[in-house]
């Protein structure tokens, strides 16, 4: 009985991996269709590339869960903040006085290691006034263009949104303690 249950557990694991691999094949194939504008001949090159891309992605990026609703909600948030960030930096560049007061801050991460942290680090660089410099063990070092503004609360908001996207629940309390529990 116990042998049977352990085997079905293994089957489940294999099934999950196959499902994710299939999902990624479809996603990469979709990208190929977009990039080649639906050309049929291009599949001679496209099919092997989609397969290789899927294999590489399965090795490099371990399976993660992602909420569709929160991913869709992320898009307007991202576009609006990108616009703000672009306008802000353009204004600083055009202003004769260059009104910036840059500095480095350490942001204690509550997200677990993995894809969600990488996603957060990349997004930080595109949002207003922040640039991710170093992704440490449980801190994200962020370069801030204007330290007079309250960047920390904006980073906290972003972290919450990213956590929802990847179906992660952030524990409340001190960031440091929390991260040590996760690691």
């Amino acid at each position, binding site marked *: 009985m116990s042998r049977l249950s352990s085997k079905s557990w293994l089957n489940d694991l294999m099934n999950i991996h196959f499902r994710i691999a299939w999902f990624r094949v479809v996603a990469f194939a979709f*990208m190929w*269709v*977009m*990039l080649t*504008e*639906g050309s049929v001949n291009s599949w001679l090159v496209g099919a092997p590339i989609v397969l290789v891309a899927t294999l590489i992605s399965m090795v490099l990026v371990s399976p993660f869960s992602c909420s569709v609703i929160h991913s869709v909600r992320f898009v307007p948030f991202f*576009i609006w903040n*990108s*616009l703000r*960030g*672009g*306008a*802000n*930096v*353009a204004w*600083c*560049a*055009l202003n004769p006085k*260059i009104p*910036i*007061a*840059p*500095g*480095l801050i350490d942001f204690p991460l509550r997200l677990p290691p993995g894809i969600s942290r990488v996603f957060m*680090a*990349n*997004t930080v*660089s*595109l949002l*207003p*006034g922040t*640039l*991710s*410099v*170093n*992704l440490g063990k449980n801190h994200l*070092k962020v*370069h801030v*263009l204007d330290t007079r503004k309250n960047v920390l609360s904006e980073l906290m908001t972003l972290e919450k949104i990213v956590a929802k996207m990847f179906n992660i629940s952030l524990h409340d309390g001190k960031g440091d303690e929390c991260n040590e529990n996760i690691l």
Partner: protein
Amino acid sequence: MTLINVLSSILLFTGGAFFLAGTLGLLRFPDVYTRLHALTKADNVGLGMVVAGLAVQAQSWVIVGKLLLIWAFVMLASATTSHLIARRALQRGIKPWKR
């Protein structure tokens, strides 16, 4: 049709202005970190505007998808590259400029 052309031109010109501002920031800002700010953010918005300006003129949905995909890939590449440059600069001990 002309309305679409007008909208497209406005978006393309605004995009160009953002690229110009980003380049100006690259030249005027004091250190490597602030210059990366100017490049990543202004160019992201600039390219987004250019993509939007071309997308409203596109003949089919596949081309809109292709343009959006290009935008997404360029954003991913620029965010990753700027992170790597900033990290290397910090590792080499380049201190951020302070007012």
